[in-house]
């Protein structure tokens, strides 16, 4: 019964948010972008609205949160109710506050990691495609060797060697994911470097960096942006999984993965509070996936 009600409420919210966001985006968009938003599916507008919401919460976290991030307020596992609307955790910290700060910490770290993986992976990938020859062969075979090891296992191996801290976490996940970005960037760039305008730019005497930045990157943007969204989901999920396993972001920093781990015992008593941070992770990943799906569909020119 409760399940049925929550599904209906969820679907209702989905449609309301989706339709409202589509109308809002269409009104706010400049004239030449209006058709894009008019034809966007509900899933995509819902996704955009959710992403926007997370960004606002992350930026305004200290202003919105009712208490301090790791403030112990007494009373472990308090039930839902004023002033702790979502109860407290096992140390007596306010759950709602930690959820809000989690948006900043978890999403922020995942975003920084993805960005790092992207800069390193795409620059190296495009460079390899541009230079070609032996350098390309060596780098690509090296990346192939690293990619033959499952990502999670490789990250665990590296975390054992370098120890677990936020900095090593970011570097390790970025390194593992950069290999995947490298592959994509290289294969996209390989299609571009054979174009006449690259030849012309080379003959003009443009340097390597300028070629990458001004000639190749703008033309490789569409697949790379879609990949950024997907990669963000992977990174976000693996950081959450590692935090959940106790190997990622460490307390007292509020983080969704470790919040699930810390309060998991409540689930066996039928309390859904620990599912909220897990749900927050799921919702953001779904939202990003919806938007990426829409962009990929648009880019592929499929109208069916």
């Amino acid at each position: 019964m409760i399940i049925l009600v929550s599904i209906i409420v969820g679907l209702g919210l989905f449609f309301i948010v989706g339709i409202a966001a589509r109308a809002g985006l269409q009104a706010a968009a400049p004239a030449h972008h209006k058709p894009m938003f008019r034809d966007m599916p509900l899933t995509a507008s819902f996704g955009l609205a959710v992403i926007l919401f997370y960004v606002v919460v992350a930026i305004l976290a200290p202003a919105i949160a009712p208490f301090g991030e790791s403030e112990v307020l007494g009373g472990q596992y308090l039930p839902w109710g004023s002033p702790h609307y979502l109860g407290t955790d096992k140390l007596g910290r306010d759950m709602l506050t930690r959820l809000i700060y989690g948006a900043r910490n978890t999403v922020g770290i995942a975003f920084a990691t993805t960005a790092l993986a992207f800069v390193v992976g795409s620059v190296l990938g495009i460079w390899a495609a541009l230079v070609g020859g032996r350098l390309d062969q060596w780098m690509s075979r090296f990346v192939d060797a690293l990619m033959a090891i499952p990502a999670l296992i490789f990250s665990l191996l590296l975390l054992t060697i370098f120890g677990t801290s936020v900095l090593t976490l970011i570097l390790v996940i970025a390194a593992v994911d950069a290999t995947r970005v490298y592959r994509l960037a290289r294969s996209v760039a390989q299609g571009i470097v054979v174009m006449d305008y690259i030849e012309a730019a080379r003959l003009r005497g443009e340097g390597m960096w300028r070629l990458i930045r001004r000639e190749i990157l703008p033309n490789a943007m569409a697949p790379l942006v879609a990949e950024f969204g997907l990669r963000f989901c992977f990174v976000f999920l693996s950081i959450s999984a590692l935090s959940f396993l106790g190997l990622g972001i460490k307390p007292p920093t509020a983080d969704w993965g470790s919040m699930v781990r810390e309060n998991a015992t409540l689930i066996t008593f039928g309390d859904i509070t620990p599912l909220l941070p897990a749900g927050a992770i799921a919702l953001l990943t779904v939202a990003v996936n919806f938007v990426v799906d829409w962009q990929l569909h648009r880019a592929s020119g499929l109208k069916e």
Partner: protein
Amino acid sequence: MSDIWRMIGRRLLLGLLTLFIISVVIFGATELLPGDLARELLGQSATEETLAALREQLGLNDPAPLRYWNWLTDVLQGDLGVSMATQKPISELVGTRLGNTLFLALYAAALSVPLSLLLGVLAALWRNSVFDRASNALALTAISFPEFFVAYILVLWLAQTGLFPSMVRITGATTTLDLLYMSFLPALTLTLVVTAHMMRMTRAAIINLLASPYIEMARLKGLSPMRVVLLHAVPNALAPIINVVALNLAYLITGVVVVEVVFVYPGLGQLMIDAVTNRDIAVVQAIALIFAAAYVLLNLLADILSTITNPRLMHRK
């Protein structure tokens, strides 16, 4: 026929080469440390004597290639080394746990592969219908869920009501039937996580073919849509389907890590997480090697099977 054997032989050699490179990477990763392993494990305050003792124990005084060679020959003989935390031989720690993990992965595969193939074919058959759109959106949602979210939702729904146990305890008296019952929730979690991807890819592989002239021919002959999809499209879509199934089975073997922790399942994943927490590098290396080998073998198998289903792949230029 001899073509096939030659192809299989070549793929096997390539797989061996990949495994060799993986073993070098897994072993060589420790060489990336700025200091050495002993210093890293004992910390800055360690005395020279304890450092020297640990180096002696780990064999760090030998040059790296020699150490690699000793490690590799030991591993090939089934000796995975000694755990630094418990001082037990790793083969002993890994033994039964490897069986448990494989059991869980196979269990999940037995549930998810038929389910996702069925859903994929149905979605392709009724494409753009409500069923297709709903299953597509659901699949996209399921892919985005962290494993522990799925796992805890299942615990909340199915373990709370007392239908299934939320923890797995394997003792000597556990029968296979008990085991199937106890590990149902972990297997179901893994099933939900991988089914979405396999289903989407099956649907995409079949739909890709539906625009081909020979499918149109079959349709114009007046064959039923079911027959067109099952007998004309599916056989030609087998190669990509086999690949995505293998990819997901490989994922199952590594994806068990989180699920095992949630359900306290005594498998390799839990052992690995404990070893990472204790920085027991020898155990982590051994388990990483096992997981990577399973990953490579499955990909190899998929490669060979999909080549056999599509003879054109065998005569590539």
